[in-house]
C-alpha cells in the first residue's frame, strides 16, 4: 500500500532549513529531507534524536578490549607459558598495545557495520532516488493528509519557502 508523497525541490540550504521547520510546525508528516551534503541544523529542524550508534561503538570497543586481553592472557599464561627473558607469564603492560589496537579495530568496524545495517545501505539495494539531490538540489518529502485542501496547503507552504518545483509521487512504503 503506497500513499502519494509531495516533494518540494529547493536550491539553497537556508531555504530548505526554513521550509523544513515550517513543515513540521504546520503539522505535516515530514518523511525525509534529501540533500547533496550534510546540512548542519537540519537534525534540529527535522526533530531527529541523536544517533545511538555511539553506544554500539562503546560496546564494541569494550568487547574488543576484553577479547584481546583474554586472548593474550590465555596464550601466554594458560595455553603455552613461555619464559621470555625471565619476564612474568602475565606481562600485563606488554599486552596493552595489542589490546588498544584491537579495541579500536572492533569499535571502528562494528560502528560502520551497525550504521550500514541501520541506514539499510547495502550493495544491490533497489534505488528510489530523486533527481539531482546528490548534485545540487535539496528535496523535502511530505506525506500530506488525503484531502485536496491539505495537499494544496502543503504545496503552497513549500512554494512560499522557495521551492523551485513540486511534485506528487507514488512511492513504496
Amino acid at each position, binding site marked *: 500500500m503506497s500513499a502519494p508523497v509531495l516533494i518540494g525541490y529547493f*536550491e*539553497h*540550504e*537556508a531555504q530548505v532549513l526554513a521550509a523544513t521547520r515550517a513543515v513540521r510546525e504546520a503539522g505535516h508528516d515530514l518523511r*525525509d*529531507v*534529501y*540533500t*547533496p*551534503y*550534510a546540512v*548542519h541544523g*537540519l537534525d534540529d529542524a*527535522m526533530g*531527529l534524536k*541523536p*544517533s545511538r*550508534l555511539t553506544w554500539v*561503538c562503546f560496546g564494541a570497543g569494550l568487547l574488543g578490549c576484553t577479547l584481546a586481553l583474554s586472548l593474550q592472557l590465555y*596464550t*601466554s599464561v594458560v*595455553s*603455552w607459558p613461555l619464559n621470555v627473558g625471565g619476564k612474568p607469564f602475565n*606481562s600485563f603492560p*606488554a599486552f596493552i*598495545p*595489542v589490546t*588498544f*589496537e*584491537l579495541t*579500536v579495530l572492533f569499535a*571502528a*568496524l562494528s*560502528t*560502520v557495520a551497525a*550504521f*550500514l545495517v541501520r*541506514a*539499510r*545501505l*547495502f*550493495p*544491490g*539495494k*533497489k534505488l*528510489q*532516488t530523486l*533527481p*539531482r*539531490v*546528490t*548534485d*545540487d538540489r535539496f528535496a523535502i518529502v511530505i506525506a500530506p493528509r488525503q484531502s485536496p485542501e491539505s495537499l494544496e496547503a502543503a504545496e503552497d507552504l513549500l*512554494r*512560499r*519557502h*522557495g*521551492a*523551485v518545483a513540486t*511534485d506528487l509521487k507514488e512511492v513504496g512504503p
Partner: protein
Amino acid sequence: MSQQHLSPLRVPLVTEPRTLGQLTEEICAPMERAPTWKWWAAFAIAVSVLGTGAGIVAYQVGTGIGVWGLNKTIGWAFDITNFVFWVGIGHAGTLISAILFLFRQKWRTSINRAAEAMTLFAVMCAALFPVIHMGRPWLAFWVLPYPNTRGSLWVNFRSPLLWDVFAISTYFTVSAVFWYVGLIPDLATVRDRLKAGAKKAVFKVLSLGWTGSHRTWSRYETVYLLLAGLATPLVLSVHTIVSMDFATSVIPGWHTTIFPPYFVAGAVFSGFAMVLTLMIITRVVLGYEHLITLRHLENMTKVIIVTGGIVSLAYATEFFIAWYSGNPYERFAFMNRAFGPYAWAYWIMVTCNVVSPHLFWFKKIRTSPAAIFALSLVINVGMWFERFVIIVTSLHRDFLPSSWSMYTPTMVEVGTFIGTFGLFFTLFLLFVRVLPIISIGEVKSVLGFARNPHEHAEAHPSTHAPARDVSTEPSSPRLHPPLAIATRKDVPV
C-alpha cells in the same frame, strides 16, 4: 545561513564563486574525460618502475635475503628504514582526515580524500618490507595468533614486532574503512551522473544505495565523528609502536623514552611534505587551484614548521641526554653519529630537517608553490635519512670494536625501495582517474563559508564546466535575486 555573522577576517575556502552543480561537474570531470598523454606518460613510468621492483623482489625471494648488504653487526638497515619511512608518510593522511576534523579545521575538506588515499598507498608500500624481510613471504600468516598443529605455538605478545603487526594491520583496515565511508555519498553523486552501463553498475554497487536522505546523513555524521575519534589515537599509537621496535631494545641510540613523540612528529612532518608534493602537482594538472588554494599549502607548511621544530628539539634532547646521562656507550653512539663514518648522512639529515623548514617562516616562500614543492622533496629526503641514521649508525659500531662494520646497500635493496615508489605512484595515478579525488559533499558544505549568502555564483565559465543555461524555473516572489544555476538538461526538475 542568512542569520550568520560574516566576519571580515574570514576568507572563503573556495576562492572562486561556484554553484553546487559546478562543483560536482568540476570534481567529476577528470573521471569522465579521456586521460591525457601526460597521464599516460606518468602511468607508464610508474608501472615500469613497479614492474622492475616486482622483478627484483622475485629475485631476492628466489635467492634469499643474503642478496642484501647486511652482515652480522648490521642486521637491520635498508629494509626497516624504508618501512618506517613509508609508514610515516601515511600519517599525514590520517592527521588531515581525523585530527583536523576533530579540531573543526574546515580547510581540510578539499585535501582529505587524496591525503587518505595517500595514507593507504603508503601503508601498502610499508607493509611490503617486513613481508619481504621474512624471506619466505608465503608464511607471512605465521605472525597471526591462530590455533595450529605445532602444539598451538602462539606468537609472542611481548614483542614490539608483533605489536607492529597489529598496529599496521589495524591502521590499514581502519583507514580504508574511514576512507570508504567518506566516499559513499560521492560515489552516489557519480552514480547519478552516469548513463546506464557497466560503470554505472559498478558505482551502484559501491555507493550501497545512498539516496542523500538526511536521516542517513545524520547517522553518517555521527559515524564519521566516531571514526575520527578512533583514528586519532590510532595514528598516534601506530608510530609509537613503530618507535618501540627500537626503544624497547638496549642498543645505545635506540633505548630512549622520547622515541614515541619524536617518531610521531617526524611522521607528520614527512607526511605533510609528501601531501604537498602530490597536491602541488595535482592541483595544477587538474585545474583545482581554487579548491586546493594557496591557503591550503600555507597551512600545511605551518604544520611542517611546528613538527620540524619538534623533530629538531628531539635531536637536541638526544644529544643532551647522551652527555647528561654519563653513559659512555650512549655518548659514543651520538658522537659517532655526528662525526663518525656516517657523518655525511647525519648532516644531510640536519640540513634537510632542522634547517630547511625554517625557510617557511618567509611568507614569500610559503606562498610559492614551486618553492614549497622543492622544500617538500628536501624534507622527504631528510626524513628518509633520519631513519637511516638512527638505524645504521646505532648498529654499525656496537659494544665490541672487533665486530665494528660498515653497511652499504646493494642494488637489490635500492631497487626494491624504488620499486615501492612505482607502486605508490601507480596506485595514486589510478586513484586520480577512477574516484573523485576531492570530497564533493564536504566541499559543498563549506562552499558558503565566509560568503555572503546573497552573493551567489554567477554562471562562471570554468575550465571543466562550460557556461550553462540560466535556470528559467519559476521562483516565488519573496526570494533572492534570480540565480544562475548549473542546470543539467539531461535531468528533469
